């Protein structure tokens, strides 16, 4: 039987296009200090540090964990770096939680970040090696065909993506840390923006952000403050070039959800999970993940989105923080989902709090939708 693990501190930087005033070290330290302050602790109270970020090519710093150890108070302590592409923030939290649940450490500081302004992620994701032809430009170029395939299979009307783009940005207006703040955003505004990778419009994509997020994870006996309890955590991956792979609803995502639901005793996610923070970097991924995560039957996800069920005042709110569509420091984006889930069940989400949230899902995916990380956190002990 694993030890109980709680989130006792959450720290975020404000997410923005360029944090010109801080180095990478200053950025991660800002999030770490806020998480420690939230937990009423200092670096002295931390046993180990786990850091996550997306590919090194994004900032061009090889093994940044070595450089960032000092900034995170890791001198003389175990430190490790996690990398699972876009899902890394979620994986980082789960590695940290595993260290607590396994009884290795009492308190673990988990930090994830990206300083996208130091280069250009689209460049870094499209290196165009010799012998191949240059066909995919950036993440949008990769995911657009799978969104198109979702639309074909389900017959979803073209405006569904627009609805999510508006809904998440309206939520972001309530989140002090969110990057994109677009007062007055509506469907007409989203539809007036150009198609970058058809069927993905400009305002249906995530921004490029600088930012960091940190959590303090604790065992039950070392817990301070208001804990959010980890009820389950799971990671899955699948080979990207497997024959018969369903790129619209990957098996690894279904398996990961089934595992985390089993651990948390969830049999009907739409009814039992009060709020979900799900990795939606392109608006169409909300209906796609609604199906993949079992909130809707296959082919029915877009109907749930269209009905308003996933809005902040809907019966199954998704991304009340504004989600990845509103803030995207890539390496941190998954951890922000996990952190926001914890804030919700601690009743600490401020203006975007879902009333009475007791059980929340944090979700991240990465690579070519081949890595998944999820956790469920609750107000009560598991």
């Amino acid at each position: 039987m694993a030890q109980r693990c709680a989130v006792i501190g959450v720290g975020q930087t404000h997410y923005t296009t360029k944090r010109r005033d801080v180095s990478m070290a200053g950025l991660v330290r800002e999030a770490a200090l806020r998480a420690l302050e939230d937990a009423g602790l200092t670096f002295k109270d931390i046993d180990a540090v786990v850091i996550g970020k997306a590919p090194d090519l994004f900032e061009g710093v090889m093994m940044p964990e070595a450089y960032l150890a000092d900034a995170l108070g890791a001198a003389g302590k175990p430190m490790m770096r996690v990398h699972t592409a876009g899902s890394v923030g979620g994986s980082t939290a789960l590695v940290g939680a595993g260290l607590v649940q396994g009884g290795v450490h009492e308190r673990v500081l988990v930090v994830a970040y990206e300083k996208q302004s130091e280069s250009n992620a689209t460049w870094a994701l499209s290196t165009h090696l010799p012998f191949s032809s240059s066909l995919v430009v950036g993440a949008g170029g990769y995911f657009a065909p799978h969104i198109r395939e979702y639309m074909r299979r389900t017959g979803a009307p073209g405006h569904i993506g627009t609805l999510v783009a508006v809904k998440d940005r309206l939520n972001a207006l309530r989140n002090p840390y969110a990057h994109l703040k677009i007062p007055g955003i509506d469907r007409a505004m989203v539809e007036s923006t150009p198609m970058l990778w058809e069927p993905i419009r400009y305002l249906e994509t995530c921004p490029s952000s600088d930012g960091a997020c940190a959590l303090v994870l604790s065992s039950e006996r070392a817990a301070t403050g208001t804990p959010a309890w980890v009820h389950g955590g799971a990671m899955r991956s699948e080979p990207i070039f497997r024959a018969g792979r369903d790129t619209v609803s990957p098996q690894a995502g279904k398996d990961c959800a089934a595992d985390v639901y089993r651990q948390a005793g969830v049999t009907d996610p739409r009814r039992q999970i009060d709020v979900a923070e799900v990795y939606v970097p392109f608006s169409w991924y909300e209906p796609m993940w609604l199906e993949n995560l079992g909130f809707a039957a296959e082919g029915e996800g877009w109907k749930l989105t269209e009905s308003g069920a996933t809005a902040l005042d809907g019966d199954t709110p998704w991304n009340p923080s504004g989600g990845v569509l509103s803030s995207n420091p890539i390496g941190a984006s998954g951890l922000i989902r996990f952190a926001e889930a914890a804030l919700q069940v601690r009743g600490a989400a401020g203006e975007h709090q879902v009333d009475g949230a007791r059980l929340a899902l944090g979700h991240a995916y990465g690579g070519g939708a081949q890595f998944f990380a999820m956790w469920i956190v609750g107000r009560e002990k598991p």
Partner: protein
Amino acid sequence: MPSDEPLTAEHVLEFPGGYTRTTGPVIGRFLTELRAGRLVGVRTAEGRVLVPPLEYDPATGEPVTGEYVEVGPAGTVTACAWVPEPLDGHPLDRPFAWALIKLDGADTALVHAVDAGNPKAVAAGTRVWPVWRGERTGHITDISCFAPEVTKIVSPVRSAYTLRAGGALGVFLEGIGRGVFVGGRCGGCGKVYVPYRLSCPECGLRIAERTELPGTGTVTTFAINNLPDPRAPEVPFVSAYILLDGADVPMIALVGGVPAHEVRHGMRVRAVWVPEDERKPSMASVRWFAPTGEPDVELS
């Protein structure tokens, strides 16, 4: 000097060698310190520090005290004006800002040029530092200009590789060089993978059997790319997942020979190769896939 215009002439009035200026003790001290790479102000009887120093306090008319105070070297812009097109006599030959700069420790501001690169980079409140001239003579131009603080550096990273397509990729590209797509059948699950690879991602078993696939297939899905990239084809271009006949995994390839918005799910396509004498073991030998004109395939 004669001019083309009647009743118009150019004339230069310039004292040969330039006027001299006797500095007096106060300005002289300031310039001597400048030559030594230091910035000083002078204290007034009321205790204010004037930079640049003056001999007589403009507030009271009294002589200044003779006490010199080191200030700066950094300061804060209190006001500025952007000069988009510098003139001959200006300190910089590129756009710059004239600014009033209050050096740290001073009570008055000094006029100087700020080399900020663009007008957004300088405003009241911007912190600036002097950029010293290599050879100093005791003149205000011993400071060639001021510049904003260093907040960012450029860190070029460049790794050069020699890529040798060996193993499975070599086998596949050798096929491309002679105009065929080489795939491989997994001995375990029987799935056909293209490009050819050494192991099955599903079973993990070694793929031993090679198979040559026809250049025809079906578009399973696609994107219309409008985002330009210097390394990608010109926009809009269609990148499609094409399931070659006989294969079990789609390949990503360009679709051409058809307007982007006429590409469809299920469309039948055929590889269009570059002329035989231009063919190389590289995907550049496949120009694109073009519609065959056959009826679309119903996708599940």
